[in-house]
């Protein structure tokens, strides 16, 4: 069966420090991969999605970037964190042929 791993679960980082959140999927190949940010009262905001290695679509201009160095690996990064980057970040995958997305457990990021 397919599983999605996202780490770390919680992270506290100072302003101006770099960020790297990693997400990997097991048990499937060529998944679509997603990064969302969840904020109270604002639902899930799609940040990036990828339909293949090296193919990244950005939805919201911001201080973050994403990369997909391997088929089942999706990384969310920042060179310098801002206070406004604090939030709950969720990784998700889908099988790529217009199916539902499956979510990881999320990372609670606090920028101090």
């Amino acid at each position, binding site marked *: 069966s397919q599983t999605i791993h996202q780490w770390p679960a919680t992270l506290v980082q100072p302003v101006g420090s770099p960020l790297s959140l990693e997400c990997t999927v097991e048990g499937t190949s060529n998944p679509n991969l997603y990064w969302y940010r969840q904020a109270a009262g*604002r639902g899930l*905001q799609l940040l990036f999605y990828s339909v293949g290695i090296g193919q990244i679509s950005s*939805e919201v201009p911001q201080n973050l970037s994403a990369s997909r160095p391997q088929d089942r690996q999706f990384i969310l990064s920042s060179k310098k964190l801002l206070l406004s980057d604090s939030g709950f970040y*969720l990784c998700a995958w*889908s099988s*790529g042929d217009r199916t*539902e*997305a499956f979510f990881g*457990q999320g990372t609670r990021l606090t920028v101090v």
Partner: protein
Amino acid sequence: AQSVSQHNHHVILSEAASLELGCNYSYGGTVNLFWYVQYPGQHLQLLLKYFSGDPLVKGIKGFEAEFIKSKFSFNLRKPSVQWSDTAEYFCAVMAYSSASKIIFGSGTRLSIRP
């Protein structure tokens, strides 16, 4: 670009009451539609989905949703809620032309009084 609106931000019901949560989307073409649920402290789970066919879709735990294309709506319903239905509910849309991009609404928090 597609978008999703959930107009009810917080709904409070007593047990055994009927539930209907509104969801409207904005997109003129063919869509896939989803309802997800997030129980307290848990990750997002799929409640039900619509791809094609019968516009009345049945999901887990007695939930159902009806796709009304003319109204661009996909409302979630349950005839009799339970305390365990307390959770946050998210509607989502995937447009066929958008390479599997899934857009979510802002969510509805459902509180059930025992």
